[in-house]
């Protein structure tokens, strides 16, 4: 319709120009008040009134906006500086990982899924690997469970450090950003030492972990824990009572606990609103029931509570890591089931049977009886669940992830409508969305 009108209008203008009478065609200016009067006349019984102050401006924030923490586009309706409506537009980094997983053998899916939410790769792996282990009924050795928890908690700290650094940067705290990335690098060093890669480590394998931790790893982690404690003290001394930080975060972006539950929000956002929902306590997976740690909750649910909850979570994670280093059980680090786990390398040159198992597992993979399983874990951003459906072949029929960032992003409109644009940036930062996880 619009196109036709445009061309008609163009033609009129051209004709008018040809006649040398440009401007005479549209000398009658139609104002908005004329329009409302006309509407009121046409529709009897309804008064259309003009509010002279109201002028809505629709702004596209993103997709390439540094404060969106990824490739997120926000269509924001602004009235002055106040956000009146907000629609997140996603899909700019859609990679089709879930679909690609259907063409891979079960063990080859692992490097794929860890590339979704690129800040919580150990959690992605645990969600998927745990689901497959439940499908085939495989028991994970105790040492492997503890090693998994060790790496996941280090990963939680790493993820929160990136969140804290970028969020503080959005509020103008440059120094915190550098301190966070300095400490994040130390955590990544421990990953490099034990798994061989700083990110996307494929360390968790079906039945356990890929290899045992190297010699000297315990000392390295202990040193990192000490450095992190100093680091957390530094962020606290910079932010906790900083007047600008207090003004910017307190009572901003508050959503009631009931509304958050309705929206399906989990993780630190929900805990900041006062709901002590933590799958590490509720879900009872891996070694968590044996470990002693607290669940930090907030009272109001504003930006300041979210900051405090995440910072306290980092301290609790350090507590868990120290307990694991003290009580790491000895034993095998991968299940001794040759049907599902690769045989040890030393056996390949001596045992024909092991070599056959090895060839079979690497080329065809193992077959899984038809069934489906949903396995949730507590990721740094909330409930990360993996749904795996098996159809009897050696490749999963469906792999689907419940990404916490995706679900949490729904709450952004509730948090920001009625607030200022500057607070929208702050609230989005405190929401901690990872676009790689949202789009998958």
């Amino acid at each position, binding site marked *: 319709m619009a196109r036709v009108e445009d061309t008609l209008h163009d033609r009129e203008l051209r004709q008018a120009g040809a006649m040398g009478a440009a401007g005479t065609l549209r000398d009658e200016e139609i104002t908005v008040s004329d329009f409302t009067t006309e509407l009121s006349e046409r529709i009897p019984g309804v008064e259309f009134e003009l509010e002279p102050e109201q002028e809505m401006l629709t702004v596209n924030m993103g997709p390439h906006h540094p404060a969106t923490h990824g490739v997120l586009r926000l269509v924001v309706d602004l009235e002055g500086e106040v956000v009146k409506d907000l629609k997140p537009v996603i899909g700019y980094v859609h990679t089709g990982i879930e679909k690609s997983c259907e063409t*891979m053998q079960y063990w*080859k899916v692992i*490097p*794929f899924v860890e*590339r979704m939410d690129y800040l919580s790769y150990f959690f992605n792996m645990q969600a998927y690997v745990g689901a497959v282990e439940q499908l085939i009924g495989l028991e994970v050795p105790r040492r492997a469970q503890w090693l998994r928890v060790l790496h996941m908690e280090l990963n939680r700290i790493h993820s929160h450090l990136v969140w804290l650094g970028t969020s503080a940067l959005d509020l103008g705290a440059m*120094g915190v950003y550098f301190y966070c990335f*300095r400490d994040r*690098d130390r955590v990544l*060093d421990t990953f*490099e*030492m*034990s*798994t*061989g*890669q700083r990110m*996307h480590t*494929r360390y968790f394998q079906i039945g356990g972990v*890929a*290899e045992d931790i*190297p*010699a*000297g790893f315990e*000392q*390295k982690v202990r040193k990192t824990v000490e450095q992190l404690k100093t680091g957390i003290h*530094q962020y606290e*001394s*910079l932010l*906790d*009572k*900083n*007047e600008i930080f*207090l*003004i910017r975060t*307190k009572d901003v972006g508050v959503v009631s606990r009931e509304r958050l539950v309705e929206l399906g929000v989990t993780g630190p956002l929900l805990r900041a609103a006062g709901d*002590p929902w*933590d799958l590490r*306590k*509720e879900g*009872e997976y891996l070694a968590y*029931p044996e470990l002693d*740690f*607290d*669940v*930090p*909750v*907030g*009272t*109001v649910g504003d930006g*300041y*509570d979210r900051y*405090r*909850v995440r910072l*306290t979570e980092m301290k*609790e994670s350090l507590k868990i890591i120290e307990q694991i280093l003290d009580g790491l059980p000895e034993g095998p680090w991968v299940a001794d089931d040759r049907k599902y786990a*690769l045989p040890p390398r030393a056996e*390949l040159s001596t045992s024909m049977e092991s070599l056959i198992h*090895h*060839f079979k597992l*690497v*080329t065809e993979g193992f077959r899984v009886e038809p069934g489906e399983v949903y396995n949730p874990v507590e990721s740094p951003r909330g409930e990360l669940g993996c749904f795996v459906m098996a159809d009897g072949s050696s490749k999963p029929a469906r792999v689907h992830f419940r990404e916490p960032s995706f679900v949490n992003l729904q709450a952004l409109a509730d948090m920001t409508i009625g607030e200022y644009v500057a607070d929208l940036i702050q609230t989005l930062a405190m929401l901690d969305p990872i676009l790689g996880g949202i789009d998958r």
Partner: protein
Amino acid sequence: MSIRPDEIKVVPRGPEPGGMGGAYRAFGETLRGLRTTMGRLFEKPVTIQYPEEKTPVYPRFRGRHKLHKFEDSGLEKCVGCSLCAAACPAECIRVVAAENDPEDRVSGGERYAAVYEINLARCIFCGYCEIACPFDAITMGHDYEMADYNRSDLIFTKEMLLAEPIDRTPLRGEGE
């Protein structure tokens, strides 16, 4: 199991902004923050002057692949079984096997890899090829400087993977 009440830790709220306290914090807390930042002046820098100084890696670090030969006979370890290509999630390895000539052997087994190519532009460095190889013929090296100007230059052939790489990457010890 659900959470016990004593495991719930309510985080402190911190001071309310504004007022007399706000006026104090605008100076006092800023000075305290400055003490934190200024204290870092006396620490060693954590940065590395990269192109001049290489980042050291741990022994397990997975960098560019290497193909290996037997040290005594000089024959290639790879027998062209294509297990690495089958294990690769990124499908970046291409192996074409051929029969060994008894007069002029290339590898230790019956067959050898006539073509062995790794597309490093596709490789995700997961190391599954290293796990899959039953003969330790392919391992992940420590080299991480692989940038190039053409994509075609990133397809590494057998000769390039067999060649002893220029050792540019320092290795970290256990305690570092």
